């Protein structure tokens, strides 16, 4: 599956900020790390602020700080701020046919699994996964 760039940026920004609870990062700092424009990232951060997941800190060394609960906030919570995952109820070609209904049943199965997966991975779990990837990258080849 493919996520929209806004969803990906939101996840990356939250992971950066949640890695250290008192960490403050600017849009420019995060944008540079992931090679994206400040303009796009600023829009994403505004959505995260409105959702209460980050807070904006003013001042000379201002930026953004994580404001959520890393053990409660899931990837699905973040992604759904930007896009719908599955549960596509809009009409599609052939929906009224038995073939169309059968196809919708199969696609629904995929959507259910995607939602269950994204809804079961918290920011805390993602931070552990990131750490594991970092460590496996450091492991010397034998």
């Amino acid at each position: 599956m493919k996520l929209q760039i806004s969803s990906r940026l939101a996840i990356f920004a939250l992971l950066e900020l949640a890695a250290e609870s008192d960490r403050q990062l600017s849009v420019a700092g995060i944008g540079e790390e992931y090679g994206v424009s400040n303009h796009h990232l600023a829009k994403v951060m505004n959505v995260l602020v409105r959702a209460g997941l980050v807070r904006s800190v003013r001042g000379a060394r201002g930026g953004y700080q994580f404001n959520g609960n890393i053990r409660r906030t899931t990837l699905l919570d973040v992604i759904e701020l930007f896009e719908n995952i599955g549960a596509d109820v809009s009409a599609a070609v052939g929906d009224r046919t038995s073939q169309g209904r059968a196809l919708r049943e199969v696609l629904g199965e995929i959507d259910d699994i995607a939602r269950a997966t994204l809804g079961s991975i918290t920011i805390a779990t993602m931070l552990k996964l990131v750490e594991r990837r970092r460590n496996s990258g450091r492991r010397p080849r034998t």
Partner: protein
Amino acid sequence: MEASTAVAAGKHSLSVRRAADTDIPHVVALDERVTGLAKSAYWHDVFERFGQSRLERFFLVAEAAQAESGLAILGFIVGEVRAWEFGSAPCGWVLALSVEPRARLHGIGQALFEAISIEFKRAGVGKMRTMVARDNRLHLLFFRSEGMMAGPYIQLEKELD
């Protein structure tokens, strides 16, 4: 496993040990509190098959090191090493895990999970597995937080006409 392993979990000091037959009424009661269903015969049968120091089968319970909680059992976990089912190499399966609702978020599930992981490693397997209902968010969140990922198998079923 040793008769009992003391574990510091959150603010509780825990002891994780193999289940004894006297624990089963408490296991039945805990399971009923969690699921709303009393399954006494089932849990006694599980104890017959998994308790009593059987090789490669584990029925572990967690209890407070001191009787501070007023609860006999804070949680339990059941698992076994299975080999070659579904074409799988030997692997540890977690078949059941439950934690007293009033004692959650204190590391009891994690202590049980770690204890059975150690047992699986001692039994010589390098992988463990479980199965969780897609809508069981609590269990999914827990097992994910312990590092479990989707495995190479897909569970399939059908209604029998």
